[in-house]
C-alpha cells in the first residue's frame, strides 16, 4: 500500500488502466470461449412444438426409429412428414398439432425445422461411424429424452471431439474431420 501511495496520480492512472486492460482481456477471452456454456444454449422455436421428452422419454421410442439415416449416413436426418403420419394417422390424430402436420402433409408442404446442432462448414462429421461404434446419441446431444424443447447442450468445440477421440484411440489426424 505504501508503494501505491507513493505513486503519482498519473502513475496510478496508468497502472489502473493496465490492470483494467488485463482484467478486461481475460473477461473477454473467458466469455469468448466459455460464453455459450455460461449463458445458456441455442434453443430455437420450432414450427411444430415437438416434444422429445414425450416421444423418446415417456414412450421410449428409439432415436433411430425416426432419425433413420443416422446409422446409415453421415447425417442423422430429420424424419419426413410421412414418417410422422405413419403413426399419427392413428395415434392422437385429432390433436391440433398433428392436424397441422397432417394438413402440411396433404399439401405436400415440407415442415421447416430450425437447426439446433450445427457444425461449422469446415468440419465433416459422420454419424454412421459413431453409431456403429456403439455410442449413444446422448453422449454428444445430451439428455435429449428428458427435455421438451431441445436446445444446444453441447457446443462441439474441437476440444470436445479431440478429447473423445483420444480416449477411444480414434484417429486424431486433422483430415479425419477437416478438408
Amino acid at each position, binding site marked *: 500500500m505504501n508503494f501505491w501511495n507513493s505513486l503519482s496520480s498519473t502513475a496510478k492512472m496508468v497502472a489502473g488502466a493496465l490492470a483494467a486492460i488485463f482484467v478486461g482481456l481475460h473477461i473477454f477471452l473467458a466469455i469468448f470461449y466459455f460464453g455459450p456454456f455460461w449463458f445458456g444454449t441455442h434453443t430455437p422455436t420450432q414450427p411444430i412444438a415437438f416434444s422429445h421428452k414425450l416421444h423418446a422419454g415417456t414412450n421410449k421410442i428409439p432415436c433411430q426409429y425416426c432419425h433413420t439415416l443416422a446409422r446409415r449416413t453421415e447425417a442423422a436426418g430429420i424424419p419426413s412428414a410421412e414418417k410422422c403420419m405413419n403413426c399419427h394417422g392413428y395415434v392422437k390424430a385429432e390433436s391440433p398439432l398433428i392436424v397441422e402436420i397432417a394438413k402440411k402433409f396433404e399439401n405436400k408442404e415440407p415442415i421447416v425445422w430450425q437447426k439446433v446442432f450445427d457444425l461449422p462448414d469446415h468440419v465433416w462429421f*459422420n454419424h454412421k461411424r459413431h453409431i456403429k461404434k456403439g455410442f449413444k446419441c446422448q453422449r454428444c446431444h445430451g439428455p435429449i429424452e428428458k427435455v421438451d424443447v431441445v436446445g444446444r447442450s453441447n457446443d462441439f468445440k474441437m476440444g470436445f471431439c479431440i478429447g473423445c477421440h483420444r*480416449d477411444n*484411440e480414434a*484417429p486424431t*489426424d*486433422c*483430415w479425419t474431420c477437416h*478438408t
Partner: protein
Amino acid sequence: MGKIKVKLFNYKKQNDYKWAMTIDLDRCNGCGACVVGCQAENNVAVVGEEQVEHGRNMQWLRIERYVEGTYPDVKVRFLPMMCQHCDIAPCESVCPVWATYQNPEGLNVQVYNRCIGTRFCGNNCPYSARFFNWYDSKWEKNQENQLNPDVSVREKGVMEKCTMCMQRIRRGKDLAKDEGRPVKDGDIQPACAQTCPTNAITFGDINDPHSKVHDLAHSGRAIRLFEEKGTHPAVLYLKGGSGNVY
C-alpha cells in the same frame, strides 16, 4: 474433455495405407479434363481475368507444358503438376502453426481452418503446387449451387492445394469399414484419375503389393520430380516412350 496427452498426433496405430499416385506421361495428352474435374470436385474458385493478370490463377492441378526445339523439329511436353505429397515435405516444417503436416497415410495435409497465411509453405515448395486465397472465393450468381458439400470453401488468407480428394478417400475407407474389409484397389479414385480419358493417372495404396499403383511404381519407368531435393514425393511420374518412332 478427459485427460490431455501431450502427444500431438496419435500415430500409435500404424496405418496400412500409403496413398500414392502415378502419372503416365506417355499417356497424358494435355486435354485438361483433370484440371476442370478437380475444380468441380474441390470447389476451386474461378479467380477471374483480373486476377489471372496478376498471375493468381488457382488450379490445384495444372498442366505444365514445355516447348523444345525449333521448327520443324518441335516437341512439346505436358507435365501435370499438383501437390506431390512429399514424404519429407519442405512445406511442413516451415509452417509456424502446424497447419500442414504429414498424415499417417502419407498425405500432405493442409488444414485450412488452422492456416494463418504466412505463405512460408508456398515459398518452400519446389513444385510451386500451393495456392493462396488472395481474396475470398467468389462464385457467379447461382453457381454456388454446384459446390461440393464434402469440401469446405476456403476463406481468404489461407493456403490451399491438392488433397488427393481426401473426401473421396474418407468415403472410400468409410464404406470399406462398413463392409469390414480393407480398401480395395480401385475403390477410391480422386477426381482427376476418375476423369482422365487416357487413364494416365492411377491412384492407390502403394503398400498393397497387388495394387496397380504399386505395379506402376515398380515398373522401372517411375521417376520423381526434383529427386535431388530429397523430398520423396508420393506422386510418381512414368517416363515417356521409346525414341524409335517409325
